[in-house]
């Protein structure tokens, strides 16, 4: 839901800045995502995963372009241009995205991370941790559903169902309702023990430890024609068990649950699948997973995982915490003077964000500083400066000789790009 209100945009920026700061702490480097790209650059991908919601247009030369709808694809293209293989990269971005939906053009801001590299357990764990932490920046009522496409596909392959039946099962899984299958001709002659297997499959979601136990029991019920499938399933379960132990070490396990019935909408996911929810928001705010195959589509094999969250949804269903602008000064004089200008320029060169204004009363000055989230207010008198620290609620009056050396920057003001 796009808002043109200044306050909404400021809130959006504040959320964006919090998220980018979080990703920077984990070593993610911000990149710019193009607003539109030539359709020809994704023609092979378009054939495999055609999109009904992509917004396309033609330029004056007749070339077809599309508006940005999936920044992950743009990031993949950037990596393709690099000559290195098996790249280790950690990238974050924010980008407006555009899709057709309900007969209108929808614009949403997506913020996401992508990680590339060989250590899939570590990267999967980090992606999950960042997904939960991203949502927890704004609310405690968070739930991250974690699935595994590889586990689901191997499980279905091991079960006594043909490909048509598997297609129908996969279609029914999102609703968690097995009863719809009983109505189909395809399932009229299914044995009762096979219905039991299906019933167990449809219940493979919930708290991690319980689902892992149920998954193990389901595997034990299957008669495997190919032992390798059982080995694969046990291996995946063990990896998930290990990962869950690490999630517990992060104190984040309680914000996650396993859901082996999760089947992502985009077919290029090949392992981990994520869907993040916050209370009171009717749909998921975060989607992600592992998509090693996608980079192969761009001609370069690369292990890849990531997620994107829809900032607009997050904004509409959470409260934005007020962010103090670090290293920000509001310099106030009763009348504009050379002294005020000199100090403003001096502190700007030192790296502070400085706003120079005139004022009438001290109360008005403090109210303005609080409203605009300044860190400090400085009131210039004839012989002294009064420094008011808004956050610490602390006031100090000092002669200019002391004031000149008083303020130091705590960290450099970082560019938003």
């Amino acid at each position, binding site marked *: 839901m796009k808002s043109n209100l200044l306050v909404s945009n400021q809130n959006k920026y504040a959320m964006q800045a919090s998220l980018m700061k979080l990703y920077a702490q984990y070593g993610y480097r911000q990149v710019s995502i193009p607003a539109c790209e030539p359709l020809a650059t994704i023609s092979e991908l378009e054939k495999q995963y055609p999109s009904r919601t992509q917004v396309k247009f033609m330029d004056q030369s007749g070339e077809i372009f599309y508006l940005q709808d999936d920044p992950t694809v743009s990031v993949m293209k950037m990596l393709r241009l690099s000559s290195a293989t098996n790249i280790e990269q950690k990238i974050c971005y924010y980008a407006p995205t555009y899709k057709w939906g309900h007969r209108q053009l929808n614009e949403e801001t997506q913020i996401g991370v992508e990680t590339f590299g060989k250590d899939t357990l570590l990267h999967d764990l980090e992606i999950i941790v960042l997904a939960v932490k991203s949502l927890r920046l704004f609310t405690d009522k968070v739930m991250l559903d974690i699935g595994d496409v590889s586990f689901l596909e191997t499980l279905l392959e091991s079960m006594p169902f043909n490909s048509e039946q598997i297609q129908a099962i996969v279609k029914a899984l999102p609703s*968690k309702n097995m*009863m719809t299958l009983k*109505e189909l001709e395809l399932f009229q002659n299914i044995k009762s023990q096979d219905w039991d297997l299906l019933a167990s499959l449809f219940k493979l979601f919930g708290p991690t430890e319980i689902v892992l136990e149920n998954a193990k029991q389901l595997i034990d019920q299957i008669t495997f024609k190919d032992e390798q499938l059982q080995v694969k399933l046990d291996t995946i379960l063990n990896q998930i068990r290990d990962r869950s132990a690490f999630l517990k070490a992060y104190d984040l396990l309680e914000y996650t649950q396993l859901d082996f019935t999760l089947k992502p909408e985009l077919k290029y996911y090949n392992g981990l699948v994520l869907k993040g*929810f916050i209370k009171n928001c*009717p749909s*998921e705010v975060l989607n992600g997973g592992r998509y090693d195959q996608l980079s192969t589509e761009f001609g370069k094999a690369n292990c890849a995982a990531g997620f994107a969250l829809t900032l607009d949804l997050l904004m509409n269903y959470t409260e934005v915490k007020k962010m103090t602008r670090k290293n920000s000064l509001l310099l106030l004089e009763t009348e504009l003077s050379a002294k005020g200008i000199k100090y403003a320029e001096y502190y700007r060169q030192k790296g502070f964000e400085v706003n120079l204004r005139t004022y009438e009363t001290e109360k008005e000055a403090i109210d303005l500083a609080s409203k605009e989230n300044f860190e400090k207010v400085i009131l210039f008198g004839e012989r002294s400066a009064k420094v008011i620290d808004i956050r610490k609620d602390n006031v100090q009056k000092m002669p200019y000789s002391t004031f000149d050396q008083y303020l130091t920057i705590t960290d450099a003001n970082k560019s938003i790009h």
Partner: protein
Amino acid sequence: MESITFALSKGRIAEAFLKAFDAEEALNSRKLIVQVGNIKMIMVKPVDVPTYVANGVADIGVVGRDVILESGESFYELLEFPFSKCTLSIAGFDQNINLEAPMTIATKYPKICKQYFPLSKTIYLNGSVELAPILNLSDVIFDIVETGTTLKENGLSVIKDVLSINPVLIANKSSYKFNQAQIDAVINQLNERGDL
């Protein structure tokens, strides 16, 4: 326990559930919101139940599967009810019509119809769908059949039963994650009734 909101289709479904929750007196009033313990029941048009649940305004709802499928929205389907069972069927004059070949189908359910008959042309009608083949607007109709009386009285007959329809308890996926205890309590209460 936090309150949850339950969207009920006005008509037979609302009657059945208000009785199940001992809130029958609401049947005689025009109230659209009825509070029963920690459940806020809202009475809505059947076609609007998916909208309320999809938007999270209602945590759960009960409505026919035909409405759910036609809405195109995705929910958890937690319970099916055996009452008011009927079928979505193809009906017309010609029992030997080739259903695999392209034809013109009149229906209130264009989305569902397109899924089962992708080669056919679909004409949307809001009601009295049986008129369409009679007046040569379509070859056949795709519509709900209960007893078949309406079809018979208009000279039509069922050519093929396509999909069984019954009321389903749906839940908003996000709501279910944060209100699972309350929603499961409602399901247990309904299961204990046994008469739904």
